[in-house]
């Protein structure tokens, strides 16, 4: 078992494309680190660099205490689970799982013991002689896990291992992968574009965008204290509502469209940096659950909006609304197909709230949990 350390690592492809830019990241021994980000953000390249499948252009990569930049994959003591499982189609389940051990000339009895132990944990005991083509997607995924487990490697690498499974199986396997990782206690780097996987599985989550590491933190910290607009919009579903707002001099209130929201002292205490933004335009972030339906409108802490659509999910209502403010979309955070109209937003409210499309509703804003970002560079405003 070992740690992984990226020290100012950059990857530039021969065509000049910079896939990873100056990444420094430590994964401690036994830690479950999730790399998350949209397609093309460099997360898989980073993972493949640990595996030795991509060369490092500049910087240093250490596994344990050794620099591994120039080591071939077989000499790195890592195991990897691939997105499409990459099972050997001509080998049985047992042969697939035991392949790496046979290459290392582990005695046959020991291979048998480890393979049987792995298939018992993974519930594959009845399928040992089957070929991959005769297995379901979930079973193939488990064989891929088994192949990595028996190695007892220093580091586990997983490249979107659940993305080919159906939704129900994905939830089940999510828990299973986390359980196996905790049981083995091996440092694990897990790549996903699914932020729910990232939030539920990772001890820490590293958010990437455009080849640059944006923030590395515990899932809760990422959610509560995103360092910039990209992280704020990428983490959380539905995404955080971002609007342009004008801070009034003295930062006692702000204007969002034609509406005014008062800011309590606690906001200014928590974010002393806001003082410098008095009289300027900033971007405010409101998580959908921080907008509650207000029976009695409290002046200075509510926004009025036109309800466009109400989706009942059973445990909550997702209310799509518009307000007369300019909505901001963080670059790269929204899906390309997503059409964002000016002033659109989403609120998650109590399922019993009486909201109908086409009506006007008032939402109470949890101002203490409101996020503030610099309108120019998108960074969060704190100290």
């Amino acid at each position, binding site marked *: 078992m070992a740690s992984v350390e990226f020290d100012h690592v950059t990857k530039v492809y021969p065509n000049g494309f910079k896939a990873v830019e100056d990444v420094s990241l430590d994964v401690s021994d036994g830690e479950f680190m999730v790399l998350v980000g949209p397609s093309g953000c460099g997360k898989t390249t980073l993972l493949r660099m640990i595996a030795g499948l991509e060369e490092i252009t500049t910087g240093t990569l250490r596994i344990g205490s050794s620099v591994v930049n120039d080591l071939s994959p077989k000499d790195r003591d890592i195991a*990897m689970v691939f997105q*499409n499982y990459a099972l050997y189609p001509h080998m049985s389940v047992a042969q697939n799982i035991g392949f790496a051990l046979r290459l290392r000339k582990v005695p046959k009895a020991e291979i048998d013991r480890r393979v049987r132990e792995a298939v018992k944990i993974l519930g594959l005991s009845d399928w040992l002689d089957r070929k991959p083509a005769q297995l379901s997607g979930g079973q193939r995924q488990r064989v891929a896990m088994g192949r990595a487990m028996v190695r007892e490697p220093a580091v586990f*690498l997983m490249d979107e291992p659940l993305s080919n499974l159906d939704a129900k199986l994905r939830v089940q396997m999510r828990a299973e992968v986390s359980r196996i990782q905790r049981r083995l206690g091996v440092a694990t780097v897990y790549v996903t574009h699914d932020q729910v996987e990232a939030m539920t599985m990772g001890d820490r989550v590293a958010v990437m965008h455009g080849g640059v590491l944006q923030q590395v933190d515990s899932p809760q910290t990422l959610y509560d204290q995103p360092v910039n607009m990209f992280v704020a919009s990428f983490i959380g579903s539905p995404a955080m509502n971002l609007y342009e707002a004008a801070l009034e001099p003295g930062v006692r209130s702000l204007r969002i469209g034609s509406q005014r929201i008062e800011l309590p002292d606690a906001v200014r205490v928590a974010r002393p940096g806001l003082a410098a933004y008095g009289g300027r335009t900033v971007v405010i972030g409101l998580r959908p659950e921080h907008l509650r339906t207000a029976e009695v409108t409290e002046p200075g802490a509510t926004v009025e909006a036109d309800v466009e659509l109400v989706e009942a999910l059973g445990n909550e209502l997702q209310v799509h609304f518009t307000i007369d403010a300019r909505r901001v979309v963080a670059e790269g955070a929204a899906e390309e197909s997503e059409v964002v109209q000016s002033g659109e937003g989403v609120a998650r409210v109590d399922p019993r709230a009486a909201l109908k499309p086409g009506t006007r509703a008032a939402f109470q804003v949890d101002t203490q949990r409101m996020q503030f970002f610099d309108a120019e560079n998108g960074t969060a405003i704190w100290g």
Partner: protein
Amino acid sequence: MVSRLSRPLVFLALCLVAISTVYPLVFMAANTMRSTSAYERSPYGLPSHFSLGSFSALVNQVPFLSSLLHSLIVVVPAVVVATLSSALAAFVFTKVPVKFGNGLFWLMLMVMFMPGIVVLLPLYVEIAHAGLANNFMPAILIYTALNIPYGTYLMRANFRAIPDSVIEAARVDGGSWLHIFRSVVLPIARPAIVTIGILTFLNIWNELFISLVLLHEPSNEMLTPTLAQLSGRFGTDIPVLMAGLLLGSIPTLLLYFLTARVFIRGMLSGAVR
């Protein structure tokens, strides 16, 4: 989808194709059983009297059995080495990151497009200088070398279908390139390799010109020049020639029947597309 109406037409067309393929074989087999005079009277239909005279005439007129043996001595190693080398080259060109890999591949393809005869004479001069004329080894090497580009070209298309991630998984599992080739690529691509092996066998087995130039002494003559001698300047004994051709195609047919299942899988999987 084949509609109900067009189904009989398709069946008819397939029958015609099958007949046009099988008929020459039947014609050849039937005429080995006729005497020369019976052939001259009517070469078509089944013979009225069966005679094996053409086979004994064949063995008396030309050194058939020794030529067959010489052909096997040259063709078998050439096919094995050419097929394995083509597979290894195709593996490197598709899966191993090598500098100038594409350039090397196109350079190799140039050899494929070059007629064998262009390189044959310079090669023969060199071989003769080295005192190796009428020796099996240069023939084996030349047949091997001339067939590698063609085999590599066909196998490259097939190896591309093997997902890169399977090779990467084997690298991470601890395999060297050679081990990955042996334990992962060869078993996965077996149908394609067998198919291309058979096609290479056919290529070399049926080749006349190179064997005529390189091995021209009766003591090491291959089968095709021997059979060519049966076609005389002033007349050809067709039943004897047919007997030679029939016996000469037995190794090819045997190879096909032994590997038919894998061969058809290889053709269907696109080994030669």
